[in-house]
């Protein structure tokens, strides 16, 4: 007999996400539904405002990948107006982006995803002396993993446990059989969890040097960047580089080492060896390097065919709302999309926790739309970016991927897994950290002969403009689409990484990556679905990003009615 499991809130993510699954008598997932439960309406709010404010407003879509929307929105306006920005501005934007990646991926792995791999309670029974030896297996120079460090971490967490109050660690799925680290390995990773709290702050400071603050930096405008004094200051440039060294050190000596350790420990754990069931991948050009080349290149892979990578065609992107809480006649291209909210609420039924409101899988059940490429669902994100570049023969990526595979002894197929997705994010961080120094050097060189950072944009109120921008946000390909009329925003649409990944079933009955990744997963205990959380976290959900709405046809949004308990 099938049983329904409701998981809400999915914690340790940005935003509000509800996952429901149905398991059979063997606790194997047969059906899955991904539902976003918050709608904010930012694109409605953009309508009628000056295009110069777009970047600042769309940035508030997300405080995590805060810089990505800021830059993408600003560049969509620049694309529409035909503004060519100075090279220095491009380099500074690239350096800010690198800073964001170094921050975001560290926080994601350690503070959001980490506790799916690391059993905090198990770490308490570790032998710190032995753990210090174990740490040396994964890197010559471990960070915060000497015997004294590890003993201090252990004592500190013991203090929490002995009082019976675990604070943020309370009531989690500790002891689940799919945790595979030894107590010593758990202790090493726990030590890095705490150390990463410190390092992520330094990474945020990197972004603030050229961005003014983080989150929500405030230094790019349509036409360029404003932090010209920081750029011209040798002390400021050196500050960035020094912080870069601190963070990069952690990336190599902790993050990379911990992933190699995880690959060894979890290499035979079935619940992390599936999880990539949509084998279509998209990525776009991003990270300007000094020679006018990009660190990562665009491309599309369909059906997992690494030999058949093709060019990304923006015209082939459409959004479907069959099962999303919006009305529409059929899939729509972002330039021509409509969004009319159509909330239908939940349906009450039996679950493993008793009677609860649940999603109506036959009807509409999420505020996230379902973007499709050529009608097909697609996964975006670090893994997609690496696979596209691996298939393209991007030498830096090929070397990094092959290096990790040989170090861990895993076959290339291991990339197409939950474990591979998490390892891919680490590899991307390593590449971004290292390659961004080329951008840094290119900036120094260019500054010798050119101090410009801004080109004043012109808007003709009698003209209509259309433009878009596609970048790689930490969670995958992000695109913003704008129409400008009468000097004001006529309409706006963001097609966001988490929208690609988290969308509900489309008109053809095809699931997106979140839902598909869960099918066939066996749960040890359906009332404590750790395995589900781990897979979903490997996709790094960012729900505020994913939920967006535009209404450029002037529908009266105040007129529709919804029933919050619409059973």
């Amino acid at each position, binding site marked *: 007999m099938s049983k329904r499991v409701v998981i809400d809130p999915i914690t340790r993510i940005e935003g509000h996400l509800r996952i429901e699954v149905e398991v059979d008598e063997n606790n194997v997932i047969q059906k899955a539904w991904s539902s976003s439960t918050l709608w904010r309406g930012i694109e409605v709010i953009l309508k009628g*405002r000056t295009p110069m404010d777009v970047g600042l407003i769309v940035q508030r879509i997300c405080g995590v990948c805060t810089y990505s929307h800021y830059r993408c929105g600003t560049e969509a306006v620049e694309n529409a107006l035909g503004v060519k920005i100075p090279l220095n501005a491009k380099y500074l934007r690239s350096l800010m982006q690198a800073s964001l990646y170094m921050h975001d991926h560290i926080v994601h792995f350690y503070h959001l995803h980490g506790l799916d791999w690391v059993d905090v309670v198990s770490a308490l029974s570790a032998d710190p002396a032995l753990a210090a030896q174990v740490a040396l297996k994964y890197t010559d120079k471990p960070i915060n993993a000497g015997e004294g460090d590890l003993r201090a971490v252990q004592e500190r967490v013991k203090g929490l446990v002995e009082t019976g109050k675990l604070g943020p660690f309370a009531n989690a*799925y500790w002891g689940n059989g799919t945790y595979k680290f030894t107590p010593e390995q758990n202790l090493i990773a726990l030590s890095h969890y705490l150390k990463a709290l410190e390092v992520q702050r330094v990474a945020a400071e990197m972004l603030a040097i050229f961005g003014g603050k983080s*989150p929500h930096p405030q230094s790019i405008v349509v036409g360029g960047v404003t*932090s010209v004094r920081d750029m011209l200051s040798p002390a400021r440039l050196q500050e960035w580089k020094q912080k870069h060294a601190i963070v990069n050190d952690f990336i190599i000596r902790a993050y990379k080492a911990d992933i190699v350790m995880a690959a060894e420990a979890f290499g035979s754990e079935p619940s992390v060896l599936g999880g990539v069931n949509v084998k279509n991948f998209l990525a776009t050009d991003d990270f300007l390097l000094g020679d006018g080349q990009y660190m990562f290149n665009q491309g599309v892979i369909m059906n997992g065919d690494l030999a058949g990578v093709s060019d990304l065609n923006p015209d082939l992107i459409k959004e479907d709302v069959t099962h999303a809480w919006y009305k529409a006649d059929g899939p729509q291209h972002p330039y021509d999309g409509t969004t009319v909210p159509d909330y239908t609420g939940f349906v009450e039924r039996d679950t493993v926790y008793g009677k609860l409101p649940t999603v109506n899988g036959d009807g509409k059940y999420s505020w996230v739309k379902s973007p499709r490429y050529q009608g097909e669902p697609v996964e975006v994100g670090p893994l997609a970016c690496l696979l596209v570049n691996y298939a393209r023969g991007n030498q830096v990526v090929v070397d990094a991927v092959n290096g990790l595979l040989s170090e861990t002894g895993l076959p290339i197929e291991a990339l197409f897994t939950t474990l591979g997705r998490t390892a891919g994010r680490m590899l991307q961080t390593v590449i971004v950290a290292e390659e961004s120094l080329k951008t840094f050097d290119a900036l120094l060189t260019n500054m010798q002969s050119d101090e410009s950072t801004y080109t004043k944009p012109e808007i003709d109120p009698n003209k209509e403009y259309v433009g878009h921008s596609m970048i790689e946000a930490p969670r995958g390909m992000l695109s913003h689409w704008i129409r400008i009329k009468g000097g004001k925003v006529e309409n706006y649409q963001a097609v966001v990484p988490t929208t690609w990944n988290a969308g509900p079933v489309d008109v053809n009955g095809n699931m997106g990556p979140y839902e598909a990744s869960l099918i066939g997963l066996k749960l040890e205990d359906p009332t404590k679905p750790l395995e589900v959380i781990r897979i979903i976290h490997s996709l790094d959900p960012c729900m505020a990003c994913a939920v967006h709405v535009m209404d450029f046809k002037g529908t009266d949004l*105040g007129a529709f009615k919804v029933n919050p308990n619409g059973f």
Partner: protein
Amino acid sequence: MDTHEALYQQGVTRMEQLRQLQPRHGETLQEKMLQNGISRRDFMKWTASVAAMLALPLPFSTLVAEAAELANRVPLIWLHLAECTGCSESLIRTDTPNLDALIFDHVSLEYHETLMAAAGWQAEENLEHALEAYKGNYLLAVEGAVPTANNGAYLTVGCKGHTGLHIVKEAAAGAAAIISVGTCAAFGGVQAASPNPTGAKGVYEVVDKPVINLGGCPPSEKNIVGTLMYFIMFGKLPALDMFNRPKWAYGARVHDNCERRGRFDAGEFVEEFGDQGAKDGYCLYKVGCKGPYTYNNCPTERFNHHTSWPVLAGHGCMGCSEPNFWDEMADFEKPLGRQLLHGLDATTDTIGAVILGATAVGIGAHAVASVFAKSEEEES
């Protein structure tokens, strides 16, 4: 009356109250610090900086130290409503080395969706448990606006499908104090900008208790942690301005302490981003700076371990700690000029403009802002 003396006595009384609460850790903070390689000296340096940040005289740092040791007995519940998680991102950047780890230890963080290990049903259990077990004693921090249109249906959280509106009202009922972290929770924020399709509101508009509003998108890490510390130390709300923002952080205009203020007074303005004036650090008023209308400590405290703030990075202040700034201060690259702000009379501005002639736009802005600076009496 010596108000500092009175406040100090109140702090001492508060410490006594805290001591009566159930201890959470058997060992003292100092013992823990030593185990973690943090010296008493480092700790005292930190307490002195907290006291200074709260604009309190040095003797208060002893209270800060004591409060930090007792703080683990104050449960903290942090709710996420209609938001972008930027405020939580700001919180995790608290800046004194090793301090974030310390706070992890001594504030009892009962519920925080971005940081907690538990998920789903078990996470909701943690919230229900904390609301019941610490009724009347917990600090409630809220991040994000409250969607109210259509009975709040634009946001539901948890297996039971409760709306954000329902949850915040329930949590507010048993809270010892409520802190709206960021402009969204305080005033509705970006989703409340016109036409506000979800009926987003600030927390104070839907609960019937006093709420401390930490304006800012996001507020700096110092303003968040400093406010938590104030309540823990004194067991009451700090002195607040007319928008219920703590005066210690929001008592002065950004313009008052701006590093480019001398340029303003000298009439030296950036005319266009990237021009020579921009390279020389001229005033950003003419490219849209809203510093004269905005109350916050950004110029003195900055962000990210004092690394920078928008004006240092060459971008005008956008007024993000003020109510309705998304509507009232747009467009952000143009001077606000003589628009009405918070419904105040434009006459003052006009007078300023007439009297002062050429640089009057800026000076007039001073006059307007001075009028609305008048705050309510301190809460007791």
